[in-house]
C-alpha cells in the first residue's frame, strides 16, 4: 500500500486518491510529478533511497535537481533540513561515515528535500534502539510541524501512536481499526 501511495506502483484495482491525485489514473509523467512534488518516501532500508557516492549534503540536493531552481535556494533548504535533523557540521560527510540512525535521518532529509505535502515512512524505527528511535520521531515531529507536512508512518512500535493524530491498524492487508486522536489530521484526504 505504501508503495502505491508513494507513486512507485500503480494500483491494480480500486481507487487511491491523495490530495486530489487519483493514483490509479495517472500517466507516467503525472506520476513523476506526483512523486516529485507531493510525496517524500523513506524506505524500510533507508540506504536504498540514497546515492552512496555522494556526500550527506549532495544526497539531499540530488532530488531537488529534478527541477530548475537557484542553486543558492537549494543549498539553503538542504542545509536547513540537515541542521534540523542533526547534521549541522556533517554536511560534507560520506555515507560510509554515518551510523544507521544517521542514515535514517538522512533518508528523511532526502525525502523532505522537495518539500512534499506528504511524507511516507516505511517502518521508520526498524532496527533502531528505543532511545535513537524516540529521538528520531521527536525530531521528525518538529520538522513536520515546522514545514506543515503530513506524514504516514508504517510502524510496529506502539509508542509511536503518542506522536500521531490518526492510527489505522492493519492486519493481513485489511484496515481493522481507525482511531482519530486530536488534533485531527490536517487537510490530507486519504481514501483506500
Amino acid at each position, binding site marked *: 500500500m505504501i508503495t502505491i501511495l508513494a507513486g*512507485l*506502483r500503480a494500483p491494480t484495482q480500486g481507487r487511491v486518491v491523495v490530495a486530489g491525485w487519483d493514483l490509479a489514473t495517472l500517466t507516467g509523467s503525472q506520476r513523476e510529478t506526483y*512523486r516529485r512534488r507531493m510525496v517524500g518516501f523513506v524506505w524500510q532500508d533507508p540506504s*536504498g533511497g540514497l*546515492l552512496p557516492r555522494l556526500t550527506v549534503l*549532495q544526497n539531499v540536493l540530488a*532530488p531537488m535537481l*529534478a527541477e530548475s531552481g537557484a542553486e543558492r535556494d537549494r543549498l539553503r533548504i*538542504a542545509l536547513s533540513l540537515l541542521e534540523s535533523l542533526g547534521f549541522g557540521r556533517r554536511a560534507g560527510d560520506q555515507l560510509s561515515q554515518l551510523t544507521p540512525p544517521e542514515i535514517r535521518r538522512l533518508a528523511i532529509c532526502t525525502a523532505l528535500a522537495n518539500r512534499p505535502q506528504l511524507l511516507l515512512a516505511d517502518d521508520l524505527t526498524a532496527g533502531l534502539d528505543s532511545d535513537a528511535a524516540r529521538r528520531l520521531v521527536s525530531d521528525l515531529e518538529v520538522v513536520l510541524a515546522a*514545514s506543515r507536512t503530513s506524514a504516514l508512518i508504517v510502524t510496529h512500535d506502539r509508542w509511536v501512536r503518542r506522536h500521531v493524530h490518526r492510527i489505522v491498524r492493519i492486519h493481513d492487508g485489511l484496515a481493522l481499526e481507525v482511531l482519530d486522536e486530536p488534533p485531527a489530521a490536517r487537510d490530507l484526504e486519504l481514501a483506500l
Partner: protein
Amino acid sequence: MRTPSASVADGRADRVQARGLSWTRLSWLQSTQRRGAAVVLWLCLVATLALPALPVLIGVSSGQLALAQTLASDGGLAVEQRVSDQASFDLFERDVDHLVTERLGPALVSGGAYASAGPLHLVLSVNGQFPSTAAARMGMTADYSDSLASHVSVVAGQLPEDGPGGAVAAVAMSQATADQLGLQLSDEFCAELSAGVEPAWCGRIVGLWKPRSSDDPFWRWSRTRLELTLAKSAFFDLLKQRRSAATAGRVYWARPGAIGEDRAPTVAAALDRVSGELGTQSRQLDSPLPTSLERFDAQRRALLSTLALLSAGLLLTALSATVLVATRLLDAAVPDRAVLLARGWPRRRVWGMSLAGLAGLALLALPVGLVGWLLLAAVATGWPTAGQALRASDFQPAGTAFLASAVGLLIVLPWVAARGTSPGVDPADLTHPSLGTSARHAPRRREPGAVPIPIALVGA
C-alpha cells in the same frame, strides 16, 4: 528542540557551496563512478577517433611514394619527327611545345630538343693515318642536343659552339666513345656521308665529356646516341651535305608535384589525346607514361579500397568496444537512476544525465583523439618512404582479420550487451520486500533502453 532555520543555513551556505551538487556534477560523478571502466571508455573513444584514420593516411602516403616511383621510372616522353633542315626542326620544336603546353600544362616540363642523323661511316683517316681499332669502321650518328651542356661534364676541351663553321666541323664526343675509337682531343677524322661515297665530311674533336649523373633521366629519354655531337648550325650543314633527313625529337619529363595521385588518370587521358593528335601530324609520341599512370591509378584504387575496408574494420572494432564499455558504465548507474526516478526525476532527465556523463568523456577524448590523429598522420607519412610503396595485397590479411573481428563483435555484441545490461530502471525495485529495499541487489531485469542505444550507435 531545534527548528529549521534559514538564517542558520544561510550562514553556512557560502562555506559549503563548493561541496554542492549540480546536474552536470551529478552526471560526471555517475559516469566516472567506475574509474577503471571510465578510463577504458575514454581510451576506446580516443581509439575510435584516431585509429581508423591510420590506414587511410598510410594509403595516401603510399600513393605519393608509388607515384614518385612511377614517374621516376616511366615519367618521360619523347616526340619525334623526321626533319630535313633547320627550319623544319625549329617549326617542329614550336608546334610540339605549343601542343604539349596547351594540353598538359604544368604536368610536363621540357627536357630539351635534339636531332640525330646517321649513320656516318668512319673512318678513312685520322690525322692522315688509318686507325688500327676494329671499331674504326663502325657506323656512327651525328647528333645535336640543345641541352647537352646541362647534362655532361667536360673532361677535356669544350663543347662545340654554334656559329659559322669552317671546312672541318667541331665535334664533341663522350670520353667512352673516344676511347672506343682510339681518338683523342684535337684529332681530326673524316667520314663517308653514305656508304661507298668519297669522304666529304671531316671533323675535329674539340671536347670530350662524360655524363654528370647516371640517374639523370636525360640519358633515358633522349633517343640520340650522342656519338658525334655537333653545334646546331654544323649539324644542319652536315644534313645539307648529306641530302638526307634527320630524326628530330623533343623530350618532356613529368613533374610529380603537378600531377598528383588524383590527377594521374586525367594526365594519362590527356597524354593519350596528345599522342593521337601527334599521330595525325606524322609525329610520334613514345612514352610508357600513359600506361604507367593508368596502372598506378588502378593499383592506388585497389589499395585505397582495401585500406578503406581495414579502416572500417578498425572503426567498427573500436566502436564496438566503446559501446560495450559504455553499456557497462550505464549499467553501473542503474541503481542511482532508480533512486532519482523514485524521487520524481523525469525519466528523460535521468537518461539525459547518464548520457551527458558519457558525452563529457567523449568531449575530453576529442582533443586527445585529434592529437593522436596528427601523430598517426606523421607516422603514416614516414612509413612507406622507408621502403617500397604499399600494395592492396599487403593489407588484405589485416583488413580481412579486422573486418571479421568487427563482424564477430557485431554478432556477439547484442548478446553481451543483453547479458550485461542490468536491472531495469524501475523505482519500484527499491521497495522489493525480500531484498531489503535495495535496488543494488534487485533481480536482473532487462533495461529496455540500454540495449537498443548501443546497437543503434554501432549501426550508425
